[in-house]
């Protein structure tokens, strides 16, 4: 119960033939956190989550979930952690009510009151047959099944992809309500930055199967500054700090700088440059890390 990290992987690897889908991933998800796992399509998010749930066998490295081995302790992991796959996988021939009853028998911790509340809040009719539901409604059913057992850990694989704005909102509200009541740890992968920026307190960015950033969100925002420079001695920008990315937009150079050196800004201004500094959004940061590999100096 007392592990500081609910999910901990060390040098986790998964190769499919010659492709390294996950390539030396060391992930630490603190207990009670909401961990936003960001990456482009094909970055390795789904493969990682499937290994955490024991659905795939790692090629190398190790993974611990709730202090357990997802393969050896498969049943125990699935009892205490729930998982929402990217594509809803439900028995199409069941009604909403039937599938809830079926699932309730699999989890000793199932909370029927929460289940009914969620069905009501998400506007799901118990009598509807799964096969007749839209993609968004099926996603909602899957969410009810993931939240009703009141898991210690909730793994959501891009839960809001393909949902319209209204459903996405209901979805996030459902997750937040459950979080407030149970204090579960959540790891969710997403490419919808706004959702992540609102509810995540920890961020991991994965690219090419490797974790390139892992940090509390507030620290990340504090560390990274967006700097615009025009004119002056351009060579001096190299001293601004660790440059995560830079691009030229007309006469202006836009840089994302980690641990900005204030003195270097002044020096640059003294050389006649016009320098602006401001906040970087998570989107800026995400794009900077995954599309450029930093300065090659």
């Amino acid at each position: 119960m007392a592990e500081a990290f609910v999910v901990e992987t060390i040098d986790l690897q998964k190769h499919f033939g010659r492709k390294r889908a996950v390539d030396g991933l060391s992930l630490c998800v603190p207990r009670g956190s909401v961990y936003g796992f960001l990456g482009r399509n094909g970055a390795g998010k789904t493969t990682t989550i499937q290994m955490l749930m024991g659905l795939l066998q790692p090629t190398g490295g190790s993974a611990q979930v709730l202090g357990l081995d997802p393969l050896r302790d498969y049943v125990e992991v699935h009892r205490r952690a729930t998982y929402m796959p990217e594509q809803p996988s439900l028995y199409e021939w069941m009604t909403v009510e039937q599938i809830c009853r079926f699932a309730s028998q699999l989890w000793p911790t199932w909370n029927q009151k929460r289940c009914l509340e969620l069905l009501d809040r998400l506007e799901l009719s118990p009598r509807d047959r799964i096969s007749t539901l839209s993609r968004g409604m099926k996603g909602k059913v899957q969410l009810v099944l993931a939240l009703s057992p009141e898991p210690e850990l909730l793994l959501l694989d891009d839960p809001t992809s393909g949902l319209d704005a209204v459903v996405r909102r209901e979805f996030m509200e459902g997750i937040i309500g459950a979080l407030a009541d149970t204090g579960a740890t959540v790891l969710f992968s997403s490419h919808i930055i706004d959702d992540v920026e609102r509810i995540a307190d920890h961020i991991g960015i994965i690219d090419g199967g490797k974790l390139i950033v892992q940090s509390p969100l507030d620290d990340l925002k504090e560390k990274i500054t967006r700097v615009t420079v025009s004119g002056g001695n351009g060579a001096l920008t190299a001293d601004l700090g660790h440059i995560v990315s830079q691009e030229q937009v007309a006469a202006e150079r836009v840089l994302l700088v980690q641990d900005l050196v204030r003195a270097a800004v002044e020096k640059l201004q003294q050389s006649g440059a016009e320098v602006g500094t401001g906040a970087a959004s998570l989107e800026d940061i995400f794009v900077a890390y995954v599309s450029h590999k930093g300065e090659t100096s």
Partner: protein
Amino acid sequence: MLLDIDPQDSVPIYAQIIRRIKWGIASGALADGSQLPSVRELATRLRVNPNTIVKAYRELEYEGFVQRRHGQGTYVSASGEAVQAEREEVVAEVIDRAAEVAVAVRLSEEEACRLLSQAMGRHRDAIRPEAGELQHG
């Protein structure tokens, strides 16, 4: 309530919430003794992590703006001086930027003060249309 947040702002979300609540207290919209929304309610409404709300409320309590009563909720509890100090602080923050510009363009203090009082007059009329109407009528 006047609460909304911008997740893309560089100001962390908990700090944005603190700022909004202090504004509410300074403006009188949140009267002394009034109850703030529960953590669950506010987290759901703003679609943010409940821990973020807890952090904001804890900080507000530490600074003496609210009181958390165990099992009952969080209540505004700010002394007259604290409220006055906060009113001055929120205004001082924006005036600082105006002052910087005023100095840069070499405006005299009298001219800057005149602009400030004109602007305040306009906003007073905008907030209380009935008072404005009376003056015009």
